[in-house]
C-alpha cells in the first residue's frame, strides 16, 4: 500500500484509477454515479431546466466532462479536472 503522503499527491479529483473502477464497477469513459446526486432543485436561475448541478464546494472551478467541460474529455480514467485560478477553464 502506498505511503499516505504519496497517495495525497497522486490521487486527484477527476481521475479514477483502473483499480478503483474495477471494484466500483465503473467502466472507463463513464461518469461516476455521484454526479446524478449533484442535481439540486432550483428554479431561480436562467437554465429553465428546473434543476442544476451543485458542484463540490471544496473544489471551486471543478470541471466535469459533458457537464461544464467538453464531453470529449471523458476518456480513459479521466472524467473531470480541477482548474486552479491560475489556469483557464478551457485549456
Amino acid at each position, binding site marked *: 500500500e502506498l505511503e499516505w503522503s504519496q497517495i495525497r499527491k497522486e*490521487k486527484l479529483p477527476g481521475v479514477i484509477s483502473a483499480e478503483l473502477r474495477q*471494484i466500483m*464497477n465503473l467502466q472507463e469513459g463513464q461518469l461516476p454515479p455521484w454526479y446524478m446526486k*449533484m442535481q439540486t432543485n432550483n428554479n431561480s436561475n436562467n437554465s429553465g431546466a428546473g434543476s442544476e448541478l*451543485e458542484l463540490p*464546494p*471544496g*473544489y471551486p472551478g471543478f470541471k466535469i466532462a459533458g457537464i461544464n467541460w467538453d464531453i470529449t474529455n471523458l476518456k480513459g480514467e479521466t472524467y473531470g479536472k480541477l482548474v486552479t485560478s491560475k489556469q483557464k477553464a478551457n485549456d
Partner: protein
Amino acid sequence: NSQMSNPELSVYVGNIDPNVTKAQLYELFVQVSPISKIAYPKDKLLQTHQGYAFIEFYTPEDTNYVVKVMNNTVSLYDRFLKVRKSVQNLPSSNNKT
C-alpha cells in the same frame, strides 16, 4: 492516529468490504471533497478492516455535501457504502433512541 480531531467535520462510512484499502477510500472520497484525514480501523489481532471508517473534511459545507452525494451512491465489491455525519445530534438535543 485513529482519532478524529473534529467529529463535527467527520462522516461515518459503513458497509465497507474488508478488501477495500485506505488508499481506495481516499481516492474515492477525494473526488467530491478535499480530505483532512481518514481513520480506517483494523482488528489488532486479525489485521482485518472492521467494515467502517471515519473521514474528516475541512469545512461543514464539504461534510454536508459528501453525505448528500455519497450516501448509498457507490458500491465497492457490490456493497453500497453508507455515509452519514459522525455527529448526528448536538449534545444539547439529548435524543433517545
